[in-house]
């Protein structure tokens, strides 16, 4: 909503500048998006007084006007027929820029013109070139035209619930209340009604009272369609509405002034003598004012005559009944349409007119006759029309009287923390147009004005009092109330939240970068993450195979599915950064994935940790000029460190996963429960996603399962041994099929009570196909210092178990 201050000033005295006014409106809830300055380009133009007019000696149609420009008396050549001595007119001195051109001191028909008198179009005020713009006779010669005609326009962002502020009068009412001034509503000059009364040849029927609650019709005969006066054109212009002709301009002016859209029909185009307001018939067609043929649905409102639609109720008039230059009789419609229906129609047809903008937010039905009256009066005045006696009206509203609220002023104290007394509340409410009755013990009886569709209960009135008084009147305090120990969410959540913080700390410390990916994916980036479906089911292992939830109205094709896994997002992050030339590409994300259930249930939202490592490690530097490519064991080591930090014991077991390279994937389990998986991305997946060559390692862990396992862990203090450790190295060879886990399990079982630790320190393949493994075994006793013989004996026992169970040979 654009509000020119000159227009606003017609209804309320403005006692401060545009910036201060904007601040005041903003503080009270009317957002001011911008302040536009109009007319600054007229700074060098002056108000001039015409002193005398003489005929141009060499041209019949030209005059010589002698003008007082304040500082000088100058002579200009002028061709306009409407000038007369004594008038105040806009004067452009030589050198001014008019319509993009610099004004030259060129002789016209032999007489030099020392400047130029301007028409409205030459100032950019309106399209009017009928004559020189005649200014207010009280203007002082020499005053800058920027001051005389310039203006500020407030561009307001009116909230959907405050449709009343989509009108200059509505904004003026706010300003009046905020500045303690009086609102001056425009006076109605009732022109004499003449001719046959409207109801002699016109009838009205509303067939859809749910969609059209009130319809006021007036008839004006004998209008002359032409341009509207420049003051109206310039106000409309400043408000952002293009001038069409005096009839249309009047309807637009009334809409902007009162916030009430009205429509003018060419009465002669009406077929028959009745108008019906009805639902459209499915597939019915109508050509609207903008020349577009539109196909309608039954939830749309049609204004129809005997033969068909003449307008799309509340949205736009029909082309056939449009006011034309030849139109003489006007049927004026001031009606109220259902907001929801208007919104749906506008959206369905993509038609967002100024009228719709108001109807879809709700228009005060109380103002329908007022707006019609003012429009009649303006059409009589500006278009020479004769208003037909009487009104045809159908009012389908169920409630007519104002809403009443009993309002206890101490309610302000309870909600705001500061109590405003009855007198203060009354003053504020009355200034906004509320009718406040006498107070009693319970409270004030407040009647809500019809334009305040948003006020229903005492809390609404508290807001009115607070916002007009100013929120700045309230001093901040800190709460002193009781703090509840009742969990506002499942306690499992709190545990997971704490766990996520610890996981984040460990991974950041391990050099992994935290990312937050988008949760919406395209079909391709989702589906391409699966090398070949394995049917792993509803778990982290199978999450990429779960059919994702699909949006009914996606913004873009590549953002239509809710992710079921963190894998696609992390691979995308990897690819983007790899292409930027980054070398160390370690990422993690803690976030939600969405696994659909039925349509009648919300999906399962799982909290998952995703980790990705690619590129090289550690960071390249002159101390590490050629860092190695990351491999499976790099990421496994990080996960192991994480598990140790969380006191969770988990096993890694080989697994097949559709996204991962066979033989390079493991499932993590604790007590049989799946915690997640780890593996190297399948090369065909990398290729599908156009990712660069090189190993990409990924893992996903279920944060709830991890939280459960970490919560079950009860780390206890264990006294450190007083006696020294005895280390023994044991190097063996085993067949390639024997796993490290088997060796370590055998060592653990056979090592006896003295074996305190086992660490693998070297692994390499042997030429005969076997594998060499070197372990550092640590022996310790809590009772005495061990002898070499005791340690050696324990090692030998372990060795023979390895030989017996796994065919190991000591090397």
């Amino acid at each position, binding site marked *: 909503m654009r509000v020119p201050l000159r227009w606003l000033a017609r209804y309320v005295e403005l006692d401060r500048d545009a910036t201060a006014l904007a601040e005041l409106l903003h503080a009270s809830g009317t957002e001011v998006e911008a302040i536009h300055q109009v007319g600054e380009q007229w700074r060098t133009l002056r108000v001039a007084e015409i002193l005398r007019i003489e005929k141009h000696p060499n041209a019949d149609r030209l005059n010589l006007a002698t003008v007082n420009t304040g500082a000088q008396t100058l002579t200009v050549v002028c061709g306009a027929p409407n000038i007369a001595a004594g008038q105040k007119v806009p004067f452009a001195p030589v050198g001014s820029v008019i319509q993009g051109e610099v004004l030259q001191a060129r002789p016209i028909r032999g007489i030099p013109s020392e400047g130029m008198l301007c028409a409205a179009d030459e100032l950019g005020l309106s399209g009017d070139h009928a004559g020189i713009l005649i200014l207010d006779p009280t203007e002082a010669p020499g005053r800058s035209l920027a001051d005389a005609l310039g203006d500020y326009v407030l561009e307001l962002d009116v*909230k959907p*619930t405050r449709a009343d502020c989509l009108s200059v009068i509505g904004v003026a009412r706010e300003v009046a209340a905020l500045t303690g001034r009086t609102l001056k509503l425009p006076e109605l000059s009732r022109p004499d009604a003449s001719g046959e009364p409207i109801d002699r040849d016109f009838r009205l029927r509303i067939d859809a009272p749910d969609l059209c609650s009130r319809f006021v019709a007036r008839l004006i005969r004998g209008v002359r369609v032409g341009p509207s006066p420049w003051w109206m054109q310039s106000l409309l212009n400043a408000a952002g509405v293009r001038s069409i002709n005096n009839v249309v301009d009047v309807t637009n002016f009334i809409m902007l002034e009162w916030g009430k859209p009205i429509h003018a029909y060419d009465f002669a185009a009406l077929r028959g003598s009745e108008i019906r307001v009805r639902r459209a018939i499915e597939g019915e067609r109508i050509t609207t004012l903008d020349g577009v043929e539109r196909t309608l649905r039954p939830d749309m409102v049609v204004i129809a005559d005997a033969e068909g639609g003449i307008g799309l109720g509340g949205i736009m008039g029909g082309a056939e009944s449009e006011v034309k230059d030849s139109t003489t009789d006007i049927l004026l419609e001031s009606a109220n349409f259902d907001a929801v229906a208007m919104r749906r129609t506008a959206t369905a047809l993509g038609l967002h007119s100024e009228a719709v903008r108001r109807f879809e937010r709700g228009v005060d039905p109380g103002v329908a006759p007022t707006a019609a009256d003012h429009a009649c009066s303006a059409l009589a005045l500006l278009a020479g029309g004769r208003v037909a006696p009487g009104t045809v009206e159908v009012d389908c509203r169920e409630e007519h009287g104002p809403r009443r609220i009993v309002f206890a002023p101490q309610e302000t104290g309870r909600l*705001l923390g500061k109590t405003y007394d009855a007198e203060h509340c009354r003053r504020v409410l009355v200034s906004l147009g509320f009718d406040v009755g006498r107070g009693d013990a319970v409270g004030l009886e407040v009647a809500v004005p019809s334009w305040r569709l948003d006020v229903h209960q005492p809390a609404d009135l508290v807001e009115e009092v607070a916002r007009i008084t100013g929120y700045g009147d309230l001093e901040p305090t800190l709460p002193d*109330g009781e703090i509840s120990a*009742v969990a*506002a969410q499942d306690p499992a959540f709190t545990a997971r939240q704490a766990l996520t913080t610890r996981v984040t700390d460990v991974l*950041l410390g391990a050099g992994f970068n935290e990312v937050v*990916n988008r949760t919406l994916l395209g079909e391709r980036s989702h589906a391409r993450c699966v090398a070949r479906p394995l049917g792993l089911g509803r778990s982290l292992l199978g999450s990429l195979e779960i059919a994702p939830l699909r949006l009914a109205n996606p913004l873009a094709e590549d953002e239509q599915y809710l992710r079921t896994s963190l894998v696609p997002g992390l691979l995308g992050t990897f690819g*983007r950064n790899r292409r930027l030339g980054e070398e160390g590409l370690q990422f993690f994300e803690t976030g939600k994935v969405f696994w659909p259930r039925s349509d009648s249930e919300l999906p399962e939202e799982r909290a998952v940790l995703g980790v990705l490592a690619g590129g090289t490690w550690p960071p390249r530097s002159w101390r590490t000029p050629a860092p190695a490519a990351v491999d499976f064991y790099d990421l496994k080591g990080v996960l192991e460190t994480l598990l140790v930090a969380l006191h969770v014991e988990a096993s890694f077991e080989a697994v097949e996963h559709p996204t991962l390279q066979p033989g390079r994937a493991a499932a993590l389990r604790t007590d049989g429960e799946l915690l997640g998986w780890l593996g190297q991305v399948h090369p065909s997946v990398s290729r599908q996603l156009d990712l660069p060559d090189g190993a990409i390692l990924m893992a996903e862990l279920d944060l709830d399962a991890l939280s459960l396992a970490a919560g079950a862990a009860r780390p206890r203090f264990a006294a450190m041994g007083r006696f020294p450790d005895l280390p023994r190295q044991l190097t063996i060879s085993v067949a390639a099929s024997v796993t490290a886990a088997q060796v370590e399990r055998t060592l653990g079982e056979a090592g006896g009570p003295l074996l305190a630790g086992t660490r693998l320190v070297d692994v390499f393949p042997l030429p005969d196909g076997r594998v060499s493994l070197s372990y550092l075994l640590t022996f310790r006793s809590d009772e005495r210092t061990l002898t070499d013989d005791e340690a050696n004996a324990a090692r030998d026992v372990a060795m023979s178990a390895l030989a017996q169970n796994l065919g190991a040979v000591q090397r």
Partner: protein
Amino acid sequence: MTAPDLLSNGAAGSAPAEALASLEQAADTAALEVWRTAHLGRKSALMLALSGLGQLPPDQRREAGQRLNRAKVALEQTFEARRSVLEAAELSAQLQEERLDVTLPGRPAVRGRRHPIRAVIADISALFQGLGFQVIEGPEVEWEDYNFTKLNLPPGHPSRDFTDTFWITERMLLRTHTSPNQIRAMERVGQPPLRVIVPGRVYRNEATDASHESIFFQIEGLMVDDRTTMRDMMGVLTYMTRGLFGEQRRTRFSCDQGFPFVEPGAQMAMDCASCDGAGCRVCHYTGWLEILGCGMVHPDVLRGVNIDPHRYTGWAFGLGVERIAMLKYGIDDIRLFAQNDLRFLGQVG
């Protein structure tokens, strides 16, 4: 000079000149050690002479002993002096050798980078936890009932219809704000008191540009008890603002009628940290930056969860996490948050 020579004749109690001269020749500690073995070692002439004192006639022993001892002490002292000089020189040479270019870069220690969204959520959570607020979460896929109806946005309400929503089914949607968690939190605890904040992702079906994202993060806050007021809300939110942006920040509350689930409704601005309120490009020359929307929980919302609005009052707020991060770190494009570019994460994480 041999041991018998030393015993028999007197070098007059002074160190043998020959020994002292050769000590001067020792150029390093290794040579010095060779000298020590030769002149003060067990097999040196002096030591042999000392151990041969017993063979002298008793009348000569005393005199010879004193003489030899003087010689030994003199040699030892000179040796020690020489040794410290040489050792100091050698250490100094070694240290000279070990000089480094201290301007060469160090070997980088690993450190992951924090995502600014998570960092801001953690900062704000910590501030509210200090005031007794619990941090909770809620579903991102939500019922339209929770997202709209229970928040005083019934079907047909203009604010609801003007919200650009991603729909999944007729009733299921991607939440457009974190506010449904006001309802969920109140339903769960049953009766006040209640203090929670709820961080999380929200979705709007609208085109993205430098200041609009279709997916972004909000933090919802809610407090309900039998005495809290709008002034408390102002106090807590001012405390949060100062905790995030510095003690000197000022806040300003103005009316906002855009949230149907609060009444009275408000928005909070803080004075621009870039220009201290003087007006600059960041604050569009207004001196103020809008931070969040807030207000007193609407009585109908309380009624909807069976909390008596005559007995209890509550307030709520919702802030955009990206906006806070953008202001805090001077980030000028909201789309950067979802790109996870390492060059971005490295700067502000």
